[in-house]
């Protein structure tokens, strides 16, 4: 169910009406769970089997982790994490692994089976949340701050687990929520507690970024398609790539903001997922601003357990490369995604290695230069998302170097620029916000939100799946 479909609007309204009904207040968690199952299963009810299976698996392991002696619980944790990763591996990576290692058997009956395994929507997100739940449950036994994660009784245990994994605003495309952030929020909610201003702002910006910016840009960036891009001039290709960079941000940040807003309406505060990433002047800063829920998950549950930066320089570099490559592969079952992660890992390693030589933190000019370098590098790396075939990526670069003399498509470039502008303004507004905290600034903000709402109604692009759905 897409966030911009009428089914979603109807679901949210109906759920909201029931959720805050005083008579049903004690059933709030059940209402959210039912709404989540409707949300996930409405188009393909078979998917619910997998979701419920994942919930049951994690509830069982969580129970074992909460009740068994610590030493044995560690074993159950390993098994639980392996089970989650196994589920993800089976549905997401079996085809890739088969083609990589048993490619010569392609065409056999076995390969037909492996290659026809569907990729259930949102599996990458809810399996990660399952891992977070298990790890945090074990931590809660020795950490007083996390005590609240341990359920008081069996029914509470099941309800908490189900709601945490299936909570519909962030179920299929994040943000990835950590158990220690979400579980303490599970309690009765009152309509008077809703922060309407926050919910309204995030909702309008989210829908605007998705429906006006990303969906319109998609119609132009589709020219980055093999072999069509071969006929485009260098400047046109650069403009299209720039547009794709804006589109992917608007698409995903927009989705996250809608999820955050809808969660806020139901009384749950999800953490920020994008913090103006394109103003980052270093790669490490970029990853503190881009898909924060994933990068913090990888840091907390992979990079630090691998040793983080505590075991010497070379080991740190190794950890960075491994974390980023696996993070890349999380995005899709193709080696190009792993390569994309590797490219970011290498950038992080180089940045760390040269940190003392290039003082990015200091001068303003260095910061501007750093921002330009990071943005360019990140934008070129997005090409691996658009063209998962390496050969096509190389041909794209080839076309960029040879098509200098072809005519530029000014109309197309102008449209790309116009629809990219809101993303640029969004980032600049963040930089300027502190300076315009006066009445004029508030009027400007009201006008901006009114204009965004107007454009959502009158200027939305054709509906398209969220790019991150495929992950």
């Amino acid at each position, binding site marked *: 169910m897409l966030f911009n479909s009428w089914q979603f609007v109807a679901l949210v309204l109906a759920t909201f009406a029931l959720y805050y009904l005083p008579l049903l207040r004690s059933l709030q968690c059940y209402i959210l769970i039912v709404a989540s199952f409707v949300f996930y299963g409405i188009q393909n009810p078979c998917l619910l089997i997998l979701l419920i299976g994942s919930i049951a698996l994690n509830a069982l392991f969580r129970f074992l982790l909460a009740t068994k002696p610590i030493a044995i619980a560690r074993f159950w944790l390993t098994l639980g994490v392996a089970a989650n990763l196994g589920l993800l591996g089976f549905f997401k990576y079996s085809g890739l692994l088969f083609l990589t290692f048993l490619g010569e058997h392609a065409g056999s009956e076995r390969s037909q089976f492996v290659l026809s395994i569907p990729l259930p929507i949102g599996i990458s997100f809810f399996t990660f949340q399952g891992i977070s739940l298990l790890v945090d449950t074990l931590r809660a036994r020795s950490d007083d701050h996390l005590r609240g994660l341990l359920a008081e009784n069996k029914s509470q245990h099941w309800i908490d687990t189900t709601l945490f994994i299936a909570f519909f605003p962030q179920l299929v495309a994040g943000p990835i929520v950590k158990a220690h952030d979400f579980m303490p929020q599970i309690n009765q909610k009152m309509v008077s507690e809703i922060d309407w201003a926050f919910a309204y702002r995030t909702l309008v910006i989210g829908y605007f970024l998705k429906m006006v910016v990303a969906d319109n840009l998609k119609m132009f960036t589709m020219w980055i398609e093999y072999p069509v891009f071969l006929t485009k001039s260098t400047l046109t290709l650069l403009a299209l790539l720039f547009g794709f960079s804006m589109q992917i941000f608007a698409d995903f940040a927009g989705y996250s903001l809608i999820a955050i807003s809808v969660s806020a309406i139901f009384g749950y505060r999800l953490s920020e997922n994008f913090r103006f990433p394109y103003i980052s002047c270093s790669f490490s800063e970029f990853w503190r601003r881009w898909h924060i829920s994933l990068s913090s998950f990888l840091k907390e549950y992979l990079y630090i357990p691998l040793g983080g930066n505590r075991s010497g320089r070379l080991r740190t570099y190794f950890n960075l490369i491994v974390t980023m490559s696996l993070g890349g592969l999380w995005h899709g079952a193709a080696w190009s995604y792993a390569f994309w992660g590797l490219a970011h890992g290498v950038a992080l390693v180089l940045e760390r290695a040269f940190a003392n030589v290039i003082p990015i933190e200091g001068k303003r000019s260095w910061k501007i230069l750093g921002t330009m370098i990071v943005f360019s590098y990140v934008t070129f790396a997005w090409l691996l998302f658009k063209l998962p075939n390496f050969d096509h990526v190389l041909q794209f670069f080839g076309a960029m170097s040879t098509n200098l003399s072809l005519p530029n498509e000014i109309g197309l470039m102008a449209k790309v620029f116009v629809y990219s502008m809101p993303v640029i303004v969004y980032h600049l507004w963040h930089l300027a916000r502190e300076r315009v905290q006066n009445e004029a600034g508030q009027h400007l903000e009201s006008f901006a939100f009114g204009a965004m709402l107007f454009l959502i109604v009158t200027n939305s692009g054709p*509906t398209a799946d969220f790019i991150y759905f495929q992950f």
Partner: protein
Amino acid sequence: MIKRSLIVFFALLSLHVVVVSLAFTKKMPEDYEGQNLDRGREFLANSEQFQCFVVGSSLAYKIHVDFLPESTFNLSFIGRGAFDGLRLIEHSRAQPELLLIELNTVYRGEDTDFTAKLTNPYSRFLYRPSHEKPVNYLMEFTAKLKQQLISHHRSRILPYAEIASNSKALHNRDVTRVRNPASVAQELPHGESLKKPYDEILQANIREWQSLPKFYPLEDNLDHLEDIVSRFAKQGVQIVFFEMPVHHEIEESPRSAIIRSAFQKRPKLQEFPLIRVFDLDVYQFHDGLHLVSESLAIYSQFLGEQIRRIPSQPIGSNQQGR
């Protein structure tokens, strides 16, 4: 803040309604989805006026209806197949007498998301026609202003990628402006550099047609097609299948062969005439699949002639063209 922004919203919306009602521009969108949606909307708004329909993909998108029977509407959509057009006809109040169904891309099923955008009231409200989008009419207005300030307007030959989005060619059927890329290549100062990419596109398409694309259920689609045409035939609608001419290597490709063979195994579909082209040398293509405008005019004329030769009742034998 919420109240003030809502006031701004309603003020802008009111202004927008005035601007749109003035309708000073009706430029076709540059993106293919926008073109598809606009075409679908145009059909649904005037469906009762048409009795003959062409349904197909981008291959048939620019067929000139002037050469076909009167009151023909081309319901072919870029990037899609015949099923989307058929769905819209069934959904509309149209009472068809003749259906021309393109077969080249019959492996593509209906895109329910796309048809829902045209048939669902919520989606129809949300996704406005391109000329009603503020960004479009503001850009158009700016372009006109610029054009008036700078008196001369350079005429140019369109490169390949813009052909699909050329509003003039679509609306006014100004076919003379869209040219064979090969001849475009020769005429432009940088012509030689354009030839290579077009050859590469042709080779890429030939490679692509070496097999059926994954996840396209051809047999299911043909089952579905059988159901649809029998429903229409029972209502007395004349059904005619046609194959758009394609580059001879694509015409002889495994994908074409698979589609043709699957089609021939369906006796229910064989009851209806099929118009094929054998003399492919007459035609020129942009990329091996899409006809250049002159060839499109020739083919449209040929298709019109073939249809006129078909008896009004479905016949048992296939038509064979040049």
